[in-house]
């Protein structure tokens, strides 16, 4: 078996393929990794009529701006997106003010020096770091990833037997489970628990029960009461994590609510069309044995 395995690995440029359950189970058995089953949460943008809650997006933006943006960026987002329908709904003035807080590379002045200007709504979000090298230097080699697509670029690992697979798939399809990434992110932010007895982690890394391998360079970014909401919403760790997750969920797909709304009409249209076509077929074939 080992030779087969080695050959296979050599085979396709280090194909260390694995979908979670088996590998996770194996690692857990070997005592390497804590396996935490990430729960499925309810998000306002899940389901048939999903939408983003404007107040939640505003709170989430506050968390992002005050905490996450110190290390991460949202490079695919423009400041103007913050004022567009379906999003946090900031007024044009607010958007302008937010954009003006950053300095953007404009070109070169007459002396050939780099010229900067204040950000405008049409600009993309600007990262605190000059580039990935600077970021890597700050975190011992780990680069805080761009978060623009983070809720779509992460999934969760679920454990089931092979014969349960059709059932899991049917359930996902019936309940439109598309928020795995959000569930992962929320769980990650809550995942900084005490190091279990007997486990060791590398210097400069932090223990997290959710992150694959359980140790990552990001220190716990959120804690109870960290961000002042000012609107009466309790600023617990759980709430902050949910809010920033919602904001990043929106950032990953600003047209999500529009998509679902359109879908309802498309289905209604197609259902009527299919009904009429079925009727025509029945009428046409009425007296025909087949």
């Amino acid at each position, binding site marked *: 078996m080992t030779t087969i395995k080695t050959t296979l690995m050599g085979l396709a440029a280090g194909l260390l393929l694995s*979908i979670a359950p088996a590998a996770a189970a194996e690692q857990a058995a070997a005592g390497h990794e804590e396996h935490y089953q990430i729960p499925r949460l309810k998000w306002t943008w899940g389901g048939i009529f999903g939408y983003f809650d404007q107040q939640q997006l505003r709170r989430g933006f506050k968390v992002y701006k005050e905490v996450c943006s110190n290390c991460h960026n949202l490079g695919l987002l423009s400041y103007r997106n913050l004022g567009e329908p379906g999003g946090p709904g900031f007024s044009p003035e607010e958007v302008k003010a937010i954009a003006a807080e950053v300095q953007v590379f404009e070109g070169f002045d007459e002396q050939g020096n780099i010229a900067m200007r204040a950000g405008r709504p049409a600009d993309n979000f600007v990262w605190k770091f000059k580039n990935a090298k600077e970021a890597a230097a700050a975190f011992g080699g780990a680069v805080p990833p761009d978060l623009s697509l983070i809720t779509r670029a992460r999934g969760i690992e679920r454990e089931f037997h092979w014969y349960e697979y059709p059932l899991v798939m049917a359930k996902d399809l019936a309940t439109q489970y598309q928020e795995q990434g959000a569930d992962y992110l929320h769980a990650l932010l809550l995942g900084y628990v005490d190091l279990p007895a007997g486990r060791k982690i590398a210097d400069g890394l932090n223990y997290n029960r959710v992150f694959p391998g359980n140790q990552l360079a990001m220190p716990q970014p959120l804690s109870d009461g960290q961000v002042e909401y000012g609107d009466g919403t309790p600023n617990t760790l759980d709430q902050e994590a949910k809010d920033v997750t919602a904001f990043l969920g929106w950032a990953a797909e600003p047209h999500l609510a529009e998509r679902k709304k359109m879908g309802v009409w498309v289905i209604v249209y197609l259902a009527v069309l299919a009904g009429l076509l079925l009727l025509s077929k029945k009428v046409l074939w009425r007296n025909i044995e087949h």
Partner: protein
Amino acid sequence: MSNESIASVTHEPGSFEHTYQPKTAFTRWLDARLPVIRFAAHFMAMPTPRNIKYVWAFGAILAYFLVVQLYSGIILAMHYAPNSAIAFDSIEKLMRDTSYGWLMRYTHVVGASLFFFAVYIHMFRGMYYGSYKSPREVLWMIGVAIFLCMMATAFMGYSLVWGQMSFWAVTVITNLFSSFDSIYPGLGTAIVQWIWGGFSVDNPTLNRLFSLHYMVPFVLVALVALHVWALHVVGSNNPTGIEVRDVKKETLPFHPYFTTKDMFAIAAIAILFAYIVFWMPNYLGDVVNYEPANPLKTPPHIVPEWYFLPFYAILRAIPSKLGGVIAMFGAIVVLFFIPWLDTSRVRSCRYRPIFKWLFWVFVFDALALGYIGSQPAEGSWVFWGQVFTVYYFVHFLVLMPLVGLIETPSPMPESIEDDVKRKAKSTQPQAVPAE
């Protein structure tokens, strides 16, 4: 319309007599120069067995998806930048800033998946009812060529995203050719570098993938035209697998009977399509592909899209690189030969008491290979991958020729008409005399 008038517009399959009469001065003029209307009228009147079921609608459904892919693809190409530095972002820009860009992209992505879903049902239908058997061998073989073209197109299209999985899938699959080094030292490496246009998967690779992804679908269109032509020559098979004897009694003109039926089937599939596009557009894809390509970071699990998984499992089942490549391509090439591997006189599995079961075992085998393809190549999955791979080939190379020789077909109806009459009798309510 009475049955009489229906019969008057039907013809022998393949015959070119027709009832089209140009009525205006212009159509008479055109008919004498380029009889396109005559051709279309004849084409649409193709005599089609009246007893075919809804699984026969998958041919029309495939044609629908082909049009959907071409249309949405041409729109995407207007916004896509085939440059490794900006390809990923250009797609995200389309999703975010182009009016309904997200709709076009999700349509194309989900459409590709459903295209494969439809083609697999279409092929299994052919296998169950023996549609590949004489006189439909060429029709079937063109189908297999279409399937190959579809796979090539889908693979290249997926690479264009230039996400992590795109990049590593291209790396892994193009690297397969390096196995030719074991035939002649240096041969594989030379081929791989020629494909890459350099010494690694990079911008030149992406450019050629884009060019070919735009081109191959038009080859596909040509092949589909041949496929439909071949269909019109030999006519559709049907659930009994018995050839049409009496065109008047056993067939109906394709239009309006099957156009209406197929349109309904397309609308029904479109509902499923819309459901996935509007609510679960990312369900069928791998999340890792939402991370931009990073040549320095191998993803922990490289897996292809779901429709390649059975073949991927076969590739990995063989403990030699070249052997795996041969087995994987062999799994598709063997399909070209099944018209001659099947020795049974009877087409339809309906009347094949043994092979009917073997058909379903084969379906299970294909699904199992798909599941194994998604699992890590370790532990018991390696063993099961090998078992199901062996069975895949045993099905075609051993069971198909053998069972055809030893099996006694169950009693069959005399003709399509006989079958239709029997079915009508058994479903007619007894209290109402049929009149």
